[in-house]
């Protein structure tokens, strides 16, 4: 995407708040006008009066009161501008964050298998923060700087050209040096960051590999090596300190030199009676007032640079297009499915590796099929294809004889229930986890689903039963409980197609047989797909498909398959032996 379209994308947000910005600019202008155009004059006037001895106490008192009043007014204005403009940053940040999240809900398996959670989080936190920094403080500071400069130099040039020139010379020097130093700092900071990640990798590896290190009595050597990494980190930090520490003293020095220049030029002018002492003080005040705006130019350039880079990274999410979505071919009249599944020459590749080759299979409505095969053979992908988490590269997946891509995604998802092997449960109550696919928490359904999955008794033992919040106060579920919760979650929504993807792997054999007893009638009422390794479960399927290295190698009922040479029979034999070992 071009940087132009990215800028346009950001401007959309800014434009929504154009009135806030306009109001902010007005407040800034008035506030700065008081701070620069009024207050220094009051002070100048007072000092001149005092110096000449013309003023009496009430006179001074009046001026002092005026000064305080002016300052209060300017401060109030500055307060409101801050609230307005800094608040604006946070408002826009919220809108952008909301849009990113919406996009995240639309993106599919391909995106999530490509992107790491940590990277997405970084974009939604620190990158978004840099963008907000540009919009809130950045906009505020740049408007104050520009308006302040225009007014201050206007006033100064009217008052005395020579003094104004002295001040003007200071501007490029300070902001130039400041900007340059900030860049240098950033470079050295990157070196520090690099070593810091090296340090943290080394540490991480030392902890993860502690068994090996201890086994070889290598802790001391590892510590010595750590010392080296740590020392390098320190020296890079010190290299950074060598510029990052003197930067403020240097700016201080430059401003000191500026005030010396004012003293020399201004002092001479006062002596020549071309400038009053009050005006001299006034110029000094401008030096103080413009001190930060001069630096701000360098600072602004820096945060804008960072903000642009961050916005670019955010845009990579906003610009990602989900592959699985309703499109032109979607037939919106399709609102329900009966559950017949057909694969026609389905092939699938992920990140350059072909994982499924030419799969053909047929699951009639209301049947229970089993899918098995070695780890990594691609059997889970068949489930993904049926739930349309992913689309095939070639061939078609048909539901009720129509291409699955013709159904609205919501309709497919609404009628397909999936329980995955490593289920993701939310840190919410057990009830809402089970009712996750339901429009509302339907108590009877939740209890029914939990009973089928043999969860009921265990849940009753939890402190707050179904209302127990997972992950809180140390309530965690065992692997088997998690799988059974996933089963109840999938059946609770009463889907036409139920896919159980290796959900029995962590469930002990005793619980499994009780579970099957309850579950089988539920499976019979719909099209069911059991993906897994256990013959004890697979034997209940009407048909079992064996997938090896992405190809369908065997297909038939349990009784047929155990009579054939092949994967299924070996599986059966191994599991018999294991059972014997267990009971020996």
């Amino acid at each position, binding site marked *: 995407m071009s940087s132009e379209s990215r800028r346009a994308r950001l401007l959309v947000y800014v434009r929504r708040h154009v009135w806030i910005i306009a109001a902010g600019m007005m407040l800034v202008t008035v506030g700065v006008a008081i701070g620069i155009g009024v207050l220094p004059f009051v002070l100048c006037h007072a000092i001149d009066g005092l110096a000449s001895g013309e003023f009496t106490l009430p006179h001074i008192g009046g001026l*002092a009161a005026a000064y*305080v009043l002016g300052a209060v007014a300017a401060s109030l204005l500055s307060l409101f501008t801050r609230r307005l403009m800094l608040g604006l940053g946070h*408002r826009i940040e919220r809108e952008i964050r909301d849009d990113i*999240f919406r996009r995240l809900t639309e*993106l599919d398996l391909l995106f999530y298998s490509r992107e790491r959670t940590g990277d997405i989080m970084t974009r939604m936190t620190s990158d978004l923060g840099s963008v907000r920094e540009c919009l809130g403080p950045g906009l505020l500071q740049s408007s104050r700087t520009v308006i302040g400069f225009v007014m201050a130099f206007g006033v100064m040039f009217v008052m005395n050209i020579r003094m104004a020139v002295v001040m003007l010379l200071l501007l490029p020097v300070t902001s130039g040096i400041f900007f340059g130093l900030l860049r240098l700092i950033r470079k050295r900071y990157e070196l520090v960051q690099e070593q810091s990640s090296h340090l943290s990798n080394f*540490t991480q*590896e030392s902890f993860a590999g502690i068994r090996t290190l201890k086994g070889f009595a290598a802790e001391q050597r590892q510590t010595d090596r750590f010392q080296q990494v740590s020392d390098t980190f320190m020296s890079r930090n010190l290299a950074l300190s060598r510029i990052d520490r*003197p930067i403020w003293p240097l700016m201080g020095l430059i401003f000191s030199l500026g005030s010396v220049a004012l003293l020399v030029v201004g002092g001479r002018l006062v002596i020549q009676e071309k400038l009053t002492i009050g005006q001299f003080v006034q110029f000094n005040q401008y030096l103080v007032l413009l001190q930060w705006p001069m630096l701000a130019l360098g600072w602004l350039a820096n945060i804008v640079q960072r903000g642009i880079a961050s916005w670019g990274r955010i845009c990579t999410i906003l610009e990602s297009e989900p592959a699985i979505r309703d499109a032109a071919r979607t037939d919106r009249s399709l609102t329900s499915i009966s559950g017949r599944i057909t694969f026609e020459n389905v092939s699938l590749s992920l990140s350059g590796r072909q994982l499924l080759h030419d799969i053909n299979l047929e699951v009639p409505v209301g049947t229970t099929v089993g899918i098995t095969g070695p780890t990594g053979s691609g059997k889970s992908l068949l489930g993904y294809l049926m739930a349309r988490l992913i689309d095939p590269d070639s061939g078609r997946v048909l539901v009720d004889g129509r291409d699955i891509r013709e159904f609205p995604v919501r309709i497919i*998802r609404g009628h397909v229930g999936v329980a995955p092997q490593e289920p993701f449960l939310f840190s919410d109550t057990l009830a809402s986890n089970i009712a996750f696919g339901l429009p509302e928490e339907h108590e009877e359904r939740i209890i029914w689903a939990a009973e089928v999955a043999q969860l009921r008794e265990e849940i009753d033992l939890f402190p707050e039963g179904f209302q127990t919040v997972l992950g809180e106060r140390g309530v965690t579920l065992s692997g088997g409980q998690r799988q059974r919760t996933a089963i109840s979650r999938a059946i609770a929504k009463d889907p036409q197609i139920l896919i159980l993807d290796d959900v029995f792997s962590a469930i002990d054999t005793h619980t499994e047989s009780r579970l099957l007893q309850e579950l089988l009638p539920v499976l019979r009422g719909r099209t069911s797909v059991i993906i897994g390794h256990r013959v004890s479960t697979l034997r209940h399927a009407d048909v079992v498909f064996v997938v090896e290295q992405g190809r369908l190698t065997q297909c038939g009922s349990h009784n047929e398959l155990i009579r054939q040479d092949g994967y299924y029979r070996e599986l059966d034999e191994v599991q018999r032996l294991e059972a014997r070992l267990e009971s020996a």
Partner: protein
Amino acid sequence: MRKHLADDSTGPILDPHLARKLLAYAKPYRVPIAWSVFTLLLMAMIQGYLPVLIKKAIDDYITATSAEINASIRIQGITHVAWIFISLSGAVFLLRSGQGYLMSWIGQRIIADLRMDLFRKLMRMPLKFMDRTPVGRLMTRMSSDIEAMERAVSDGLIGLIADLFTLLGVMGFMLFLSWRLALILFLLLPFLFVGIVLLNTQIRSAHRNVRKQQSTLNTLLQEAITGMLTIQLFSREENMHARFGEHNHTLKDAWIRSVYWFSCFFPTMEVFRALSFSLLLIAGGAAIGFGIKGVSIGVLIAFFAYVREFYRPLEDLSDKSNILQSAMASSERIFGLLETPEEIEDPVSPKELDHFKGLIEFENVTFAYEGEDWVLRDLSFVIKPGEAVALVGATGAGKSSVASLIARFYDVQKGRVKVDGVDVRDYRQADLRQRVGIVLQDPFIFSGSVASNISMNDPDISRERVIESAKYVNADSFIRELPEGYDTELSERGATISTGQKQLLALARALAQNPDILLILDEATASVDTETELLIQDALKKLMKSRTSILIAHRLSTIRDVGRIFVMRRGKIIEEGTHAELIQKEGYYKTLYELLGSDRNIT
């Protein structure tokens, strides 16, 4: 620029107990610290003196009205003052930069010392501790907690001292120039402090709320991202979005509230500054009007400068107290870790050890990793020097615990583990483990070259020894095929080489140490190709020939060749003998053997 990562704690800014421990770390650097403080003092003095110079220029030259000095002398005077001003400013610049660098030098050293101590401590902690502590938590100690302390040492603490000196310096010089004006100005101070404290309280509580909301949102976000496919499968996108939107709003509102209070801060300071200026004008004007000695236009202008100097340090006072506070919370966690008992310790007078003959004895060993979950129950056996023994059994039978106990990764609860007739607890851990070579089930590959992974960075292991070991265990040929041979850089977890190659590397690693006792936790992995599998089997046989070895075996071919086989079940040895004897018995071993033989070992 450094990131300001403020705290989330409400604790005290300075806990005396923790401060004492921190002070111990500062002790080696007391001389540079003293210098640093001295420099700060000097700086405060010079900086306080600069307005006096301005006053001199104004009163003596610029506004001098007496006729006896003419314009050119006055201009010369100003130039003279200007030169002094420039030199003093130059000095301040040098002092400030030098002091800043010195301080960061001290801070970096102290933190590096602390980091080393922490690392050393963690390297010494027993495996039991490492098993139950997530690596992530240890990483937080080593990174963000250490960082928080670094900021506190080099910015917070010294910053506060510098600010204090500046404030005191400014106040001193004000009193010196005109104590009457100074005292009048000080009248504002109580109001100022009350104002700052009130605002700071609000700002901090608002900020705490922001952090709370931010972390709630981040938790939700993290969960939503990892569970997104589940959300999509159950068509809960809208729902999730609504929930997220709500939290997003709450976070924004928290920010707006924080901005609300934060926006008051600078304007409030501004108003106080203006009040000080007005007071100065009135009091100064009155003093000049009544001709009170020592108050002049120059004094007044100098006072304006002092007022500005005075307010500057107050502006980031809350930042600094935040830094200190969060460092206190971090240092508590760090020192807590540093003081954790180590459990497995070296004996006071360890048994000296050069070589093992290789006699291993288990005497009624009972062992559990946690509580009373016994993994080994009353286990006794003897392995003679030079003998090779295979341990077989189902998962969880206690095989690998036997190996871990010989290397003293854990201590037994009852009974004794003896090597060469001496309890392993009587050897120094490092000595023991140097003589005992271990090949782990899941070989850990460190980032670094292939050679350093074999030598484990031991300088005593020469390059020749590395290559010789690799050749002996059949690893040499695949290593030579890597882009840079033995100097090829491997990444963490060894992503660049296959599982089988990793296992060969682990064998070479164990052999390179030339151990007297070899413990092999071997696992037949499905993903090892047949060719590599044969290489591994061959290497294992060769390795076990010349030393006492215990093989925790899954590979049939290797078990068969081992002289003695212990069959373990639930922490006990239930059968023992040669392969042929055990098969004849038709017991547990036979079933196990058939299972392993079926080569589709799914457990």
